[in-house]
C-alpha cells in the first residue's frame, strides 16, 4: 500500500549447457524481469558477449510469421475469444506440424483469390469510369476512332463549339459540365483545336471498346456484381474457417510466441564461451522460491544470488502493490505515469477520491442508476484487462453518484421526497426548484474546503517523497519548501479568516488585538513570510508560482460548477418536456395531443441521454484532472518502468 512491491536484484550464473532448463524455468515462473545486457564494458563484465539465440529460434519465428499472417487477415485477437479448453503443449506441437500447414494453405489460397477478385473489380470500375462520359453519345464507340483523314475530339467544354471548317459534332449539355464529340477533317485539326480551347476544352480519352458505351457499362457492372458475389462466398468460407479454427490458431500463436520468446532470451544475457549470466528483478517475496526451483532444474549447477540495489542509479521496475479494491485505480495512474520505485504510489488515494469527486459532480440518483446499468451491460462486450478495470472504476463512480444523489435528493433533476442533506443544488427553473434555490455559497465553501485539504495532503506527500528521494543539503531544503507552500496557503487563509467571518469556515475575527492588529492576522502574516522564505531558499524562481495557490484551490470550484450545470440541463429538459409540452396536453386530451405528448417524451429522453453523456464526460474528466493537475503536481513525478516478468499469462495453452 502506498509503496510499490519491494523488488530484489537477482543474478543467475550457470554453465551454458544449463541455459535451456534455466530459461524454461524462468519462463514458467513468470517472475524474472530481465535486465537486458548491453556490451559496454561494465565493471565486472569485461569479456562478456551478448548470447546467441537457441537453435530452435529460426524455425519457430518462421512458423510464427506464417501463422500471424493468417491470424491478422482473420483479425483474430486473443482478447476477443474466451477459451473453452486449454490445450497441452505436446498435443499442440503435433497439430502445428500436421494440421496447421493445411489450415494456413487453405486460408492463404482463399485470401489470394479474394485479392485477385478485388483487383479485377477495380479494373472494371476504372473502365466504367472511362465510359460514363460517352453513355449519352448516339454513336457506337468503334466509330469514334481509327480514321486517317478525320480527327475526333471528345471532352468537356464550357459552351457549344462550331468551328469554321466542315464538321460533325454531338453536343450533350448538362449541369456544370457539357460534353462534346467533334469530328473534323484531319487538315483542319489545328483550327478546331483552337476553337475548342476557346471554350475551355478538357479532353477525355476515347475508350478502346466496341459498341455503345451504355451497353458496355451495363456489361461491366454485371461482371462486378458477379465478382462481388464470389467475394461474398469467399468471405463466408473465411468466416467459417475463422469460427472453426479461431481457438486453435490462437493457441498455436500462444505456443509459438512462447517458444520464440524463450529461444531469443539469450540475446538479453551476458555470455562467455562456457557460461552465461542473467541479471534481473524479482519481487522480494518470491526470490527464495525462484532460486530454489532454479537449483532444482539445474541439479545444483547454477549460482543464484541477490545483488545490492543502488536506488540512485538502478532503474527498478515497478509493480503496483495495492489492495484489490484499489486495483482499478492503476489504470488511471498508468494513463498519467507509473510511479518511480522510491516514490509514494498514490493509487489508493486516487481510487478512493476519484469516485467521490465524480459523485459530488454528477450526484443524481437517476443518472447513477443509468450509469450503473450501462456499466453492467458493457461488461459483456469489453473483454480486455484494461477495459475491465476501467469499467470497475466507472462502476465505483456510479455507486458514488447514487449515494450523492440520495444526499442531494436528486433524480434526473427532480427533487426527491426528502430535502437535500448536502447543500441544496435545485435551481428554480420552471417553478420546480423548491425551497430557496441553490445554496451556492455553501456549495462553494464545501468545494474550497475539499481543495484546501486535498492540496495540503499533496504537499505533505511531497515532503515525504523529497525526504525519501533527495540527498544532502538539497533534501532539507526541498522538504522545507513543501512545508513553505503549506504555510503560505494556511497563512493566507488565516489572514482572510481574521478579517472576515465566513460561514462554515474558521472564524478568527474575535481574536484579541495587539497594537490594533489581531493576533490571527499577525500569525497569518508570519506563516506567509516564513513560507515564502522556505520556498525561495529551495528555488527563487518558484516565487512567481505563488498565485497558483489561489488558482489551484479555486479550481476545486469545478466540483460545484460542473455539477450545477448538469443539474441545470436536467431541470431545463424536464421543464421543456413536461412543463411546456406534455402537461398542457394532458388537460384536454386529443389525438394530436397524444402525438405531442409522444414528442415530449422523445425530448425528455434525448435531453437526459445527452446529459448523461455530458455528465460522464464532465464528471470523469474534471475529477481526474483535479488529481492530475492540482494533486499530482504537488508531489508526484512518475516515470517508473513497468515490471514485465519474463513469461506470459497462458490463456489457451498449458504445459
Amino acid at each position, binding site marked *: 500500500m502506498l509503496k510499490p512491491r519491494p523488488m530484489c536484484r537477482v543474478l543467475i550464473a550457470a554453465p551454458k549447457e544449463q541455459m535451456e532448463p534455466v530459461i524454461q524455468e524462468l519462463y514458467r515462473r513468470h517472475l524474472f524481469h530481465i535486465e537486458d545486457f548491453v556490451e559496454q564494458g561494465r565493471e565486472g563484465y569485461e569479456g562478456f558477449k551478448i548470447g546467441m539465440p537457441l537453435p530452435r529460434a529460426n524455425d519457430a519465428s518462421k512458423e510464427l510469421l506464417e501463422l500471424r499472417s493468417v491470424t491478422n487477415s482473420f483479425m483474430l485477437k486473443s482478447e476477443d475469444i474466451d477459451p473453452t479448453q486449454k490445450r497441452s503443449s505436446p498435443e499442440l506441437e503435433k497439430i502445428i506440424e500436421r494440421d496447421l500447414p493445411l489450415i494456413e494453405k487453405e486460408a492463404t489460397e482463399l485470401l489470394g483469390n479474394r485479392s485477385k477478385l478485388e483487383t479485377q473489380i477495380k479494373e472494371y470500375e476504372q473502365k466504367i469510369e472511362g465510359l460514363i462520359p460517352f453513355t449519352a453519345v448516339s454513336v457506337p464507340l468503334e466509330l469514334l476512332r481509327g480514321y486517317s483523314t478525320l480527327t475526333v475530339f471528345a471532352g468537356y467544354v464550357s459552351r457549344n463549339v462550331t468551328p469554321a471548317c466542315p464538321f460533325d459534332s454531338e453536343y450533350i449539355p448538362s449541369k456544370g459540365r457539357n460534353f462534346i464529340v467533334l469530328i473534323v477533317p484531319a487538315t483542319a485539326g489545328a483550327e478546331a483545336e483552337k476553337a475548342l480551347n476557346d471554350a475551355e476544352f478538357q479532353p477525355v480519352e476515347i475508350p478502346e471498346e466496341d459498341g455503345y458505351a451504355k451497353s458496355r457499362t451495363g456489361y461491366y457492372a454485371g461482371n462486378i456484381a458477379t465478382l462481388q458475389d464470389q467475394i461474398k462466398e469467399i468471405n463466408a468460407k473465411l468466416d467459417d474457417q475463422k469460427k472453426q479454427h479461431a481457438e486453435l490458431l490462437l493457441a498455436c500463436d500462444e505456443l509459438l510466441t512462447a517458444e520464440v520468446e524463450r529461444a531469443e532470451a539469450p540475446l538479453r544475457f551476458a555470455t562467455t564461451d562456457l557460461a552465461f549470466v542473467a541479471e534481473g528483478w524479482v519481487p522480494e517475496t518470491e526470490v527464495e522460491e525462484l532460486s530454489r526451483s532454479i537449483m532444482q532444474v539445474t541439479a545444483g549447477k547454477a549460482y543464484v544470488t541477490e545483488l545490492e540495489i543502488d536506488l540512485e542509479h538502478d532503474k527498478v521496475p515497478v509493480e503496483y502493490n495495492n489492495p484489490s479494491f484499489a486495483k482499478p485505480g492503476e489504470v488511471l495512474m498508468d*494513463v498519467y*505515469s507509473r510511479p518511480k520505485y522510491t516514490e509514494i504510489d498514490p493509487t489508493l488515494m486516487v481510487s478512493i477520491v476519484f469516485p467521490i469527486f465524480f459523485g459530488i459532480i454528477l450526484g443524481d440518483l437517476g443518472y447513477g442508476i443509468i450509469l450503473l446499468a450501462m456499466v453492467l451491460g458493457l461488461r459483456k462486450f469489453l473483454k480486455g484487462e484494461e477495459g475491465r478495470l476501467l469499467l470497475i472504476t466507472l462502476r465505483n463512480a456510479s455507486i458514488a453518484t447514487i449515494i450523492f444523489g440520495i444526499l442531494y435528493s436528486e433524480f434526473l433533476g427532480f427533487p426527491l421526497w426528502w430535502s437535500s442533506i448536502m447543500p441544496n443544488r435545485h435551481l428554480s427553473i420552471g417553478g420546480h426548484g423548491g425551497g430557496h434555490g441553490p445554496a451556492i455559497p455553501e456549495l462553494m465553501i464545501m468545494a474550497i474546503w475539499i481543495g484546501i485539504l486535498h492540496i495540503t495532503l499533496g504537499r505533505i506527500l511531497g515532503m515525504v517523497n523529497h525526504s525519501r528521494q533527495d540527498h544532502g543539503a538539497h533534501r532539507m531544503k526541498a522538504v522545507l519548501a513543501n512545508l513553505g507552500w503549506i504555510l503560505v496557503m494556511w497563512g493566507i487563509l488565516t489572514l482572510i479568516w481574521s478579517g472576515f467571518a465566513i460561514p462554515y469556515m474558521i472564524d478568527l475575527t474575535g481574536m484579541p488585538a495587539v497594537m490594533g492588529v489581531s493576533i490571527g492576522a499577525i500569525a497569518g502574516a508570519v506563516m506567509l513570510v516564513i513560507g515564502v522564505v522556505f520556498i525561495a531558499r529551495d528555488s527563487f524562481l518558484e516565487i512567481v508560482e505563488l498565485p497558483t495557490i489561489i488558482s489551484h484551490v*479555486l*479550481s476545486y470550484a*469545478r466540483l460545484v*460548477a*460542473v455539477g450545477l*450545470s448538469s443539474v441545470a440541463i436536467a431541470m431545463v429538459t424536464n421543464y421543456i418536456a413536461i412543463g411546456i409540452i406534455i402537461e398542457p396536453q394532458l388537460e384536454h386530451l386529443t389525438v394530436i395531443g397524444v402525438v405531442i405528448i409522444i414528442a415530449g417524451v422523445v425530448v425528455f429522453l434525448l435531453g437526459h441521454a445527452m446529459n448523461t453523456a455530458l455528465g460522464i464526460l464532465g464528471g470523469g474528466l474534471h475529477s481526474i*484532472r483535479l488529481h*492530475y493537475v492540482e494533486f499530482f503536481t504537488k508531489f508526484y513525478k512518475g516515470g517508473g518502468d513497468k515490471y514485465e516478468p519474463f513469461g506470459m499469462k497462458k490463456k489457451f495453452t498449458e504445459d
Partner: protein
Amino acid sequence: MADAVMTVEMIQASQAGMKALGAGIAVGLTGIGTGIAEMGIGSAAVGATAENKDIFGLVLLLTVIPETIVIFGLVVGLLLLF
C-alpha cells in the same frame, strides 16, 4: 429623458438585469478564452498523440488546463446570480 421617472422597482429590476448580463458575459467571455487557449493545445496534442500513443494521458492533461478559466467564469456567474 428629463421627465422619465425612476421608481425603486425599476431600479431593482434593472439591477437584476445587469447582474444577469454580467453573469452571462462572465461565462461567455471566459468560454471563448478557454476555447481559444485549448484550440492550439488541442491540435498539437492530437498531432503528438498520432506520433506516440503513450503520451495520451499527458496531452489530455495539457489540453484541459485552460478549462480553469471558464470554471472561474462560471463561479463568478453563479456568485452574481445567487
